[in-house]
């Protein structure tokens, strides 16, 4: 119940913030994804990095704020769409390079079927029923429970930092980009804090620009 409340809070406040963001028009973002952890406060343990191997990805490693227990925390696909134009498929994380567990949301243009990129949630255990699931996105919040943060990883996965969410997108897709100017919502904190409800302009991690 607490998770649901937290998620609801994140969605409600983020919706207000995103919809009131004047920069949306100039950036022409059609979709924005926020922190997948079901929380209103996440700490970045490793800034944007690329270590998934075969694809160009850029990721943040995220834990709950101030050392709260992250293992077992729910992870949601949380995308705000300005257009209802995507088809999203959930697959197991590609293990061709590492054996890390996870879920990747593969994103296609609903009309033409063009592949537009992927949002990856790694070091998580997939939720029951999510693999193989799909939906057509709305011009509103698009939410799906994708899993929970894992306490263990297969031996081929480096995992020296313990339980955390590694959230990335495939950056070789031109229309997908990361928020490199992500605000630190608590500068007094040693780590960058990403609070989905705490920034009026920079509370998203990945965005899809208009591609047509």
């Amino acid at each position, binding site marked *: *119940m*607490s*998770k649901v*409340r937290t998620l*609801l*809070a994140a969605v*409600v*406040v983020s*919706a*207000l913030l995103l*919809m*009131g963001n004047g920069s949306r028009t100039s950036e022409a973002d059609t979709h924005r994804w926020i922190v997948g952890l079901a929380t209103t406060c996440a*700490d970045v*343990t*490793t*800034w944007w*990095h690329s*270590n998934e191997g075969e694809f160009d990805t850029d990721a943040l*490693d995220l*834990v*709950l704020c*101030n*050392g*709260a*227990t*992250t*293992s*077992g*925390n*729910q992870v949601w696909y949380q995308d705000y769409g300005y257009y209802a134009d995507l088809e999203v498929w959930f697959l197991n994380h590609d293990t061709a390079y590492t054996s890390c567990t996870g879920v990747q949301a593969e994103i296609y243009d609903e009309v033409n079927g063009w592949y537009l990129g992927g949002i990856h949630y790694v070091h998580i255990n997939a939720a029951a029923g999510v693999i193989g699931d799909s939906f057509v996105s709305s011009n509103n919040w698009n939410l799906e429970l994708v899993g*929970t943060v*894992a*306490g*263990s*990883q*297969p*031996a081929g*996965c*480096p*995992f*020296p*930092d*313990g*339980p*955390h969410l590694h959230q990335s997108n495939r950056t070789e897709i031109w229309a997908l980009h990361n928020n490199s100017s992500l605000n630190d919502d608590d500068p*007094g*904190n*040693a*780590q960058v804090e990403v609070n989905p409800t705490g920034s009026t302009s920079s509370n998203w991690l990945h965005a899809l620009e208009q591609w047509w």
Partner: protein
Amino acid sequence: MVVGALRLFAPLLVGFLLISCGDGDQQPSPQTSTTPEIELSENPVLGQDALVWVYDDASVENGATCLSLLDELVPVTERTKVEAKRATCHVTGQEALSLNFLSDSSQTLYIGSVQVILLSDIALPLATLTSSSGAQELPMCRDHLANLHLSTRHPEEALWRSACMILPPLKGAPLQTTQVVWATVPEASQVGPDEILPCWLLPKYMELSPSNDAKDVRCSL
């Protein structure tokens, strides 16, 4: 558009606030007892200094990180049994990941347990916490000795890397029966290939690195 959004979401927001007000996981009320009570802390604030309980003979340099003092921190279960003092240390991100503190009403922090990553034959099961957070607690490493990868085996035969917790021992206490097991640390850490450190000290070598490259080392549990 903003007004429209407010109209749309205001009822949900109000509902959430009402629900939150009745939530049971609020901050504890101030303690009135004169006996220091130990309770789960809100964890040290990253980037700030913290008061920690260290052995009386500990030498603490200005600006020391709490992680560097790990072997000088008095375990919470032993806090009244040894000569000890308060010291100040700096909280970095790694403390939050690897160390579990408990605090008393004076905000002094006591080390409760430390997190390590050990090689194992199964994914060590998580236990559901009783708190309302819904998070799941990591298991105690010693509860799963039979599933850990002993140093007599080759590390590449291990199937999993599992996070688990260890209770730090009292300094100078007789050693418990130990097993030497395989653990994972960042590739760049200073642990040598022939070293066998106590597992509970491994967090001292867990510097975060963007690469996340790891290496396997042995430690005594």
